[in-house]
């Protein structure tokens, strides 16, 4: 299918309340033609509700959803023509694999010969050719996942929705399927909205990620931008590990607990800020600091051997706890030992302490 057959999605002011609980709060969202967009958020954030509204299963209180030019907000689910992969796959247990995949074709009045051919193509696409006669309960979790995908794309919908489709699989299979889904998306090019609470999955697969919390989109950007330049503390803490320490910015520059810091860029405003520290950006300095590396003295509180590395927990001079990975081959730090941790100036990232100003 050609990429230009995919439809963009525009969501405006989408709102839904259950009683006093506001599940979605005037959400605006644009998904580009052929884009792979992930809705990422903790459970109860409203990400699944938003997906269900795109599919037409949940009726919003107000708002607008357009697929391309077409307003679909009041369209019942069976007229929306979007593919969907359910969390539990929802493969019909009374039908075999072929009948499951042929289901949407049958409803569209497609002839026997073409149905047969398209079912075979879909099976081939998900690498399960020859499985047509199997019953659903004869399939493994990974195979069901693929069949559910085949069924969702066989009628060539221009939009594909996926609700945590990999959450029931074990870790190894999940990581494998992430790559496969991504490759399939590149081949088919349909606009895809993917829901997950797994940040690594979101980072791996998405063109863009929309981080949702309490019914609001907190940030929407590319995986790299979301990870490296989170818009607020919620995003920073939800994606990847991070520690925030309070630093002060004044006319002489930025300092942490009296230690002057070199920053990647000077913040626009003065006053207290939060410095984001990611464990993988910290190093243990054996020698004196070099140019462009900030030096943070710390005391080791724990050193945990983890095979490929040693995870070192340390407390900074202001008492906040950070962690850093040390090479397993190097000398393991001892508990109580004083270290110098290095943070490159280019790796520094500040958020204003006053969130509302963000």
């Amino acid at each position, binding site marked *: 299918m050609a990429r230009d057959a995919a439809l963009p999605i525009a969501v405006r002011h989408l709102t839904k309340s259950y009683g006093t609980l506001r599940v979605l709060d005037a959400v605006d969202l644009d998904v580009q033609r052929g884009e792979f967009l992930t809705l990422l958020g903790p459970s109860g954030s409203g990400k699944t509700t938003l997906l269900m509204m795109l*599919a*037409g*299963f949940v009726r919003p209180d107000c708002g607008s959803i357009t697929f391309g030019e077409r307003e679909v907000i009041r369209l*019942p*689910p*069976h007229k*929306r*023509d*979007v*593919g*969907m992969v*359910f969390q*539990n796959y*929802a*493969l*019909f*247990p*009374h*039908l075999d694999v072929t009948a499951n995949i042929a*289901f*949407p074709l049958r*409803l*569209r009045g497609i002839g026997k010969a073409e149905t047969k051919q398209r079912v075979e193509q879909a099976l081939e696409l998900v690498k399960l050719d020859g499985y047509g006669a199997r*019953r*659903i*309960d004869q399939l493994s979790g990974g195979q069901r996942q693929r069949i559910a995908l085949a*069924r969702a794309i066989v*009628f060539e919908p221009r939009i594909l929705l996926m609700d945590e489709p990999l959450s029931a699989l074990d870790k190894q299979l999940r990581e494998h399927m992430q790559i496969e889904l991504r490759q399939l998306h590149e081949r088919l090019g349909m606009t895809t909205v993917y829901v997950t609470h797994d940040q690594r999955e979101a980072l791996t697969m998405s063109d863009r990620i929309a981080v949702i919390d309490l019914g609001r989109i907190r940030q929407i950007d590319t995986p790299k931008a979301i990870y490296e330049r989170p818009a607020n503390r919620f995003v920073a803490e939800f994606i990847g590990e991070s520690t925030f320490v309070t630093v002060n910015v004044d006319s002489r520059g930025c300092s942490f607990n009296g230690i002057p810091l070199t920053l990647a860029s000077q913040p626009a405003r003065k006053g207290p800020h939060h410095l984001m520290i990611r464990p993988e950006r910290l190093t243990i300095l054996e020698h004196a600091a070099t140019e462009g590396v900030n030096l943070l003295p710390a005391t080791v509180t724990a050193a945990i051997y983890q095979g490929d590395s040693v995870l070192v927990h340390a407390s900074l001079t202001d008492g906040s706890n950070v962690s850093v990975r040390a090479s397993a081959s190097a000398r393991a730090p001892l508990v109580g030992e004083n270290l110098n941790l290095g943070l490159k100036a280019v790796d520094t990232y500040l958020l204003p302490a006053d969130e509302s100003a963000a």
Partner: protein
Amino acid sequence: MSKAAGPNAEGLRRDALVERLALFSLSGPALLLVTMTMLLPVGWLFWLSFLDDAGALTLEHYRRMLVQPSYGRAFRITFEISFITTAICILLGYPLAYVLSQLPRRAANICMIAVMLPFWTSLLVRTYAWLVLLQRQGVINTWGMKLGLWDTPLTLVHNLNGTLIGMVHIMLPFMVLPVYASMRAIDQDYLRAAANLGASPTWAFWLVFLPLSLPGLLAGALMVFILCLGFYVTPAVLGGGKITMVANRIATDIELFFNWGAASSLGVVLFVLTGAILYVASRVVRLDRLLGGGAA
């Protein structure tokens, strides 16, 4: 199987045996009760059906059943009534169970109590209550004529109508319960998936909901049909002597003719036929399980 040799093998084997015996002994009282109240009397009736008045072995009772048309008629009526009752129970019970299954659980539970209410009243009381309602000067005829719906009293009772009304009323919960349970067990996501793939609510019902609720429907139909085969009180009271099902025929044979052999042979034939139906149906239902509706 070769016995494992090794430290404590003998003792461990004995422990396993003792555990199994202890578990088995728990079922002892029930087993004894079933033997005394079921196996012995049924076996005795079975034996009686092969004896003539003098106590000699004979196949006379079974021969008579084939020869005398009144016996064949009793069996035909029994199966006809059971079949019609089952059909009406499906027509009434399936939509009712569907409505219940779509209600919120709390409301459904309250409605379920209403469905179950007849269960808590004696069968005899319910049957005579229908007599009061349905007879010529009964509540329904009186009101119907007062309201000018019909002029002459309808014959609602002392015939097939009355028997069917009474039996459907008694059997309906047996239909609703398994159907409701199987409908509740249908994951809403199946219907969502059907809609998402382009099925209108009507199509989703025919292509997904009905097939998935079919095991419950078959179980309910089977239960109703089998239970109907043994009905006695309802056809006796509401049939007004015109409806002779096998159980009524058995009663006549004993009460009027004191012919235990004839009565026993009727019981044996009904028992065997019921068993055969159960066997065939269980094959069909199991086959259905194999084709789906199993663990998802």
